[in-house]
């Protein structure tokens, strides 16, 4: 069981991409922002790509303008720099279309109702666009030298694994047999199609109406030119994620669900040959007075209550007893996780009383991450 040394990680000039992942609400965005700030204040040129920051955190990072490009964060000390941006999924998708299709084709695609559905609500598009944006930022970093460290937050998926699977799902949907078949009539003679397809097409026609089917076909035909590019870029970004310049940080809270997800995720990264730096166990309850156990604290409170003495002390003792129960439960789960993953470096971050919503809070989390 080793300690995760995050200062060494962010100080290592060979590390150029850090990805925070984990299940929803565990602190991925917070960790990404805190590490970004710390790295910048230690002299690196950092860009943080956040996905869904809490409102007040977004404000403190200056993420009020949603223009899908990184902006300098005000109030950062030291001689590095910190830029931050919030992912606009639809806009990223639109930009891809605009950049890779002829103007007429792009216009056709952007106005198509199926494109609108796909780009704004297809499960997985957000994950895919996060990858796309990472690819773009990386290219820009290499070309311009604006940044030497990219920190990427991942979407609030119900399961941490969605992040790795989504691009494949989207790509295979776009390359799938059915889309190919829909394309066929636009390209080749109908008679080449099997009876099954013919039947399928006529049913679709009957149910969806001719207009809808035409829309799908136009969309598919227009999109066709993009398929190759989509796939190639996704593969490139995935390859980038396997390089030693990348470090994955899995974030988990000391709850069974989140730890289970973290286990799956670390295992999956191993299978995918993706470099795992370690696991951040976030929001772990701590106490400075662990010598006073929950049981003894509660017994002491009861003693005071029975004797009708100092209700204030009794209340504080009850509070401490609750806290100690939580401390024991959190550490039990955290320790079990560590024992089950001895080769994975971990670091524990205490649960703060307040939410993390300004640079001071982020600095504090940064200190805890590297303590």
């Amino acid at each position, binding site marked *: 069981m080793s300690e995760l040394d995050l200062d060494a990680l962010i100080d290592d000039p060979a590390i150029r991409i850090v990805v925070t992942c984990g*299940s*929803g*609400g565990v602190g991925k965005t917070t960790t990404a922002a805190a590490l970004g700030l710390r790295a910048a204040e230690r002299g690196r040129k950092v860009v943080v790509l956040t996905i869904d920051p*809490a*409102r*007040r955190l977004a404000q403190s990072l200056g993420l009020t303008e949603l223009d899908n490009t990184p902006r300098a964060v005000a109030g950062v000390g030291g001689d590095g720099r910190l830029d931050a941006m919030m992912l606009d999924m639809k806009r990223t998708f639109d930009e891809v279309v605009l950049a890779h299709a002829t103007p007429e084709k792009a216009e056709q695609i952007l106005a198509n109702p*199926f494109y609108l*559905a*796909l780009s704004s*609500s*297809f*499960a997985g598009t957000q994950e895919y666009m996060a990858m796309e944006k990472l690819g773009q930022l990386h290219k820009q970093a290499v070309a311009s030298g604006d940044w030497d460290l990219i920190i990427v937050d991942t979407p609030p998926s*119900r399961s941490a694994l969605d992040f790795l699977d989504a691009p494949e*799902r989207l790509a295979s949907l776009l390359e*799938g*047999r*059915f889309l190919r*078949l829909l394309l066929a009539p636009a390209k080749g003679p109908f008679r080449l199609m099997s*009876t*099954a*397809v013919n*039947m*399928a097409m*006529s*049913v*679709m026609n*009957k*149910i969806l*109406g001719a207009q809808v089917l035409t829309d799908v076909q136009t969309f598919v035909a227009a999109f066709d030119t993009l398929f190759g590019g989509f796939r190639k870029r996704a593969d490139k970004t995935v390859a980038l994620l396997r390089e030693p310049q990348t470090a994955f940080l899995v974030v988990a809270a000391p709850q*069974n*669900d989140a730890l289970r997800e973290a286990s799956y995720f670390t295992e999956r990264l191993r299978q995918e040959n993706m470099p795992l730096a370690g696991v951040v166990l976030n929001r772990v309850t701590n*106490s*400075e*007075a662990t010598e*006073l156990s929950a049981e*003894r*604290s509660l017994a*002491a*409170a009861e*003693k*005071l209550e029975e*004797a009708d*003495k*100092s209700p*204030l*002390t*009794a*209340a*504080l*003792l*009850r*509070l*401490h007893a*609750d*806290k100690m*129960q939580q401390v024991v439960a959190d550490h039990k789960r955290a320790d079990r996780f560590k024992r089950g993953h001895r080769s994975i470096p971990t670091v524990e971050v205490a649960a703060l*009383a*307040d*939410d993390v*919503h300004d640079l001071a809070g982020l600095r504090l989390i940064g200190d805890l991450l590297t303590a």
Partner: protein
Amino acid sequence: MARLHVVTGKGGTGKTTVAAAMALALAGQGQRVLLVEVEGRQGIAQIFDVPPLPYVERKIATGVGGGEVFALAVDAEAALLEYLDMYYHLGRAGKALDKVGAIDFVTTIAPGLRDVLLTGKVYEATRRKAHGKLAYDAVVVDAPPTGRIGPFLNVNHEVADLAKVGPIRNQADAIMGMLRSDVTRIHLVTLLEEMPVQETLDAVEQLEALDLRIGSIVVNMVRHSPLDDEALALAVKEKIPAAELTKGLRAAGVAVSKELVATLAAEARDHAVRVGLERENRDRIDALGKQVTELMLQPEGIDHGALIDLAEEFRG
């Protein structure tokens, strides 16, 4: 009286748990209840500790008052084939669609269609008759999270816009009619934390703009403070009297040190800050003017016993 209860909330706030507890609470009043999940996650099976549910309604619990809870995991693909067969008598053609990947494609690329099917199934179950009376007294839906609940419930309105006439239009109108009527209530689950509360407020606004009715806000995982308001105020101001604390600890037989006194006061301050945040969030919820139900944090986690306790809190 409302018979269709739709439970939503930010991810991880306890939608599945609350839906299950609500179903048990209704069964406890002797009702025959159907608990439905629509996200293909087998959350109900997990929470009741039974094998994964097939696309069939089956009994999973019995209420004390003679009521029963049935569960159903709706599968969009199966529902699509069922639907096509019902309206178009497809038979073999339905299989052909499945074979070329059309079903998969359509339900994936057009999330709206998925929602049409899922809400369609909920509608069918809610109004189903058996032996001349309603098959279920109540239907509880473990619905998609707040980020997707508006489009999910409103999808039939969109369909009605697309299909001007015909059976699809009629079905869409009927579903929308039920969802907007007295029969349906939407319950929002939240924690007293910034992000879930913000999502709740946004969702209430969005749902009401769609003419949908909010039933209640369920504040989940509530903890009661052992400190009264006076103690909380002292704690926030870091004015817990060290002398009284020292004396109190001695009287309680605890080995006192300066550090212990300082730590207990600091823990009280942190706690009071948290409570302050929770109260701010609670005020934002109360300002909505909706019915609020509190469910206590179950320190040992959720098992069958904890679900029954939560069900009792529901009944008040």
